[in-house]
């Protein structure tokens, strides 16, 4: 075969592979970019302002953490054709089923409120009142699901997910010293020494990487998309690319705030945007848009994760491929979660800070259970067959899960008792 033929063959093969990937990609990319939700963006913003580039190496470690956990949901969903809520009921009985389901419903609703807090705070920078933000966002999110096709919803969600990458050009706008970013950021060290504050930030960063809703969302999305066992490698690739993107976005955001706000006492991404917009309007606008998009992406995933779980447990029709009249309860849950969470943000003097703190504590009660169930299910030969975890996968998964449980528990305890380690 001559060079031209070989090149053409490889080119066709690449295009074919890309076409199949684009067809099967979605859940992994969306969940991973939605992982950088309003809470996540705030965490990375504050991390950059506090420690500069000093914790970039730690963010890189979060890539395998996110991938190993979420990859298991792809296999479980593709093999069992069941969402995580239904899988827990079926495998562990009604006690653990109800515990996980009710905990998920509560933590998702509270997290949804924090996404609305992020979105309204971001648009307040442009003088858009919260009422308008909540109303417009709710209408857009309703329109996204009303067309009755999972595929269309997914592609619209991917567009919003792509907007999450806005922090990449933002990082180039601040002209960071690449040498400094690499020398300070990539060499593992603890800036300022290992102390309580640093430990709190390490816990916060790992805590924002894996949230309970992500496990439930991706597994249900894999099922709703109709992925089969043969599609697992594509789902794995989708999740790996998504994990890479989530870490890249986090690093670029840390570079932005580490360059322009290093040493400042910043408490939120909205505060950072409103400070930066004074001296650099474009950069401040980018950060605000990114925060809004993060909240929006988180909100669409979280409200869907809850609706899928309700449908699975109560046996209602639950698919984005169904029209409202075919799955009325599924869409009722979705709309109710959205409208009620949005309404809370509009209540004057609502305890929003308390809600934000409470989310972290409640999430700690659900995350270990969801992760332990995930590993137990993935090790069950009767359920998973040849797709069960290998020894190597178990070593990686169990190590990561134990670290997540310990750190997220400490994070929750520190939230409850702030003076404990600082």
């Amino acid at each position, binding site marked *: 075969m001559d060079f031209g033929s070989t090149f053409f063959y490889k080119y066709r093969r690449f295009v074919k592979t890309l076409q199949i990937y684009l067809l099967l990609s979605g859940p992994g990319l969306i969940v991973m970019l939605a992982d950088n939700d309003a809470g996540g963006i705030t965490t990375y913003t504050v991390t950059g302002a506090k420690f500069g580039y000093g914790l970039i190496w730690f963010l890189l470690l979060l890539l395998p953490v996110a991938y190993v956990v979420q990859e298991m949901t792809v296999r479980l969903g593709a093999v069992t054709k069941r969402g995580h809520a239904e899988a827990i009921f079926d495998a562990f009985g009604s006690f653990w089923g109800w515990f996980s389901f009710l905990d998920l419903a509560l933590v998702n609703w509270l997290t949804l409120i924090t996404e609305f807090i992020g979105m309204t705070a971001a648009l307040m920078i442009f003088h858009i009142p919260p009422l308008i933000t909540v109303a417009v966002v709710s209408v857009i999110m309703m329109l996204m699901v009303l067309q009755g096709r999972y595929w269309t919803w997914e592609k619209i969600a991917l567009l919003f997910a792509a907007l999450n990458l806005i922090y990449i050009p933002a990082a180039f706008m601040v002209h960071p010293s690449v040498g400094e970013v690499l020398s300070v950021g990539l060499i593992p060290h603890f800036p300022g020494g290992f102390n309580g504050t640093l430990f709190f930030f390490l816990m916060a960063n790992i805590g924002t990487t894996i949230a309970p809703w992500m496990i439930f969302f991706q597994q249900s999305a894999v099922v709703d998309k109709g992925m089969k066992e043969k599609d697992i490698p594509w789902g794995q690739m989708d999740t790996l690319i998504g994990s890479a993107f989530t870490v890249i976005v986090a690093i670029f955001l840390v570079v932005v705030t580490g360059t322009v706000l290093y040493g400042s006492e910043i408490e939120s991404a909205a505060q950072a945007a409103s400070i930066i917009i004074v001296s650099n309007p474009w950069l401040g606008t980018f950060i605000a848009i990114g925060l809004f998009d993060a909240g929006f992406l988180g909100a669409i995933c979280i409200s869907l994760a809850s609706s899928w779980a309700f449908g699975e447990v*109560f046996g209602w029709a639950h698919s984005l491929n169904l029209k409202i009249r075919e799955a009325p309860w599924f869409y009722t849950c979705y709309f109710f979660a959205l409208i009620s969470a949005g309404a809370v943000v509009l209540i004057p003097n609502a305890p929003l800070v308390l809600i934000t703190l409470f989310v972290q504590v409640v999430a700690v009660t659900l995350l270990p259970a969801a992760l*332990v169930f995930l590993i137990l299910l993935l090790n069950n030969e009767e359920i998973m067959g040849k797709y069960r975890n290998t020894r190597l996968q178990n070593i990686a998964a169990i190590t990561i899960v134990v670290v997540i449980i310990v750190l997220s528990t400490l994070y929750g305890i520190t939230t409850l*008792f702030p003076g404990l380690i600082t």
Partner: protein
Amino acid sequence: MVTVEGVFGDRIGSVIRGWMNKIDGINRKYAVPRITMSPGVKIALMLLRLYLVFLVLLLGYKFYTLMQ
């Protein structure tokens, strides 16, 4: 005998009764865990229970200190 219809009236009572029956049906459907209760699974579930009890005690203590 006290019934939900007697407490809440026929209309609301029948809705509550419907939900109770639905939940009862779910409990019956998933009464027996499908997963084999091997020693590893039993230990994991026991540790999970202890962990949750620990968290509940912690939350209770926090509530107590707030009330002081």
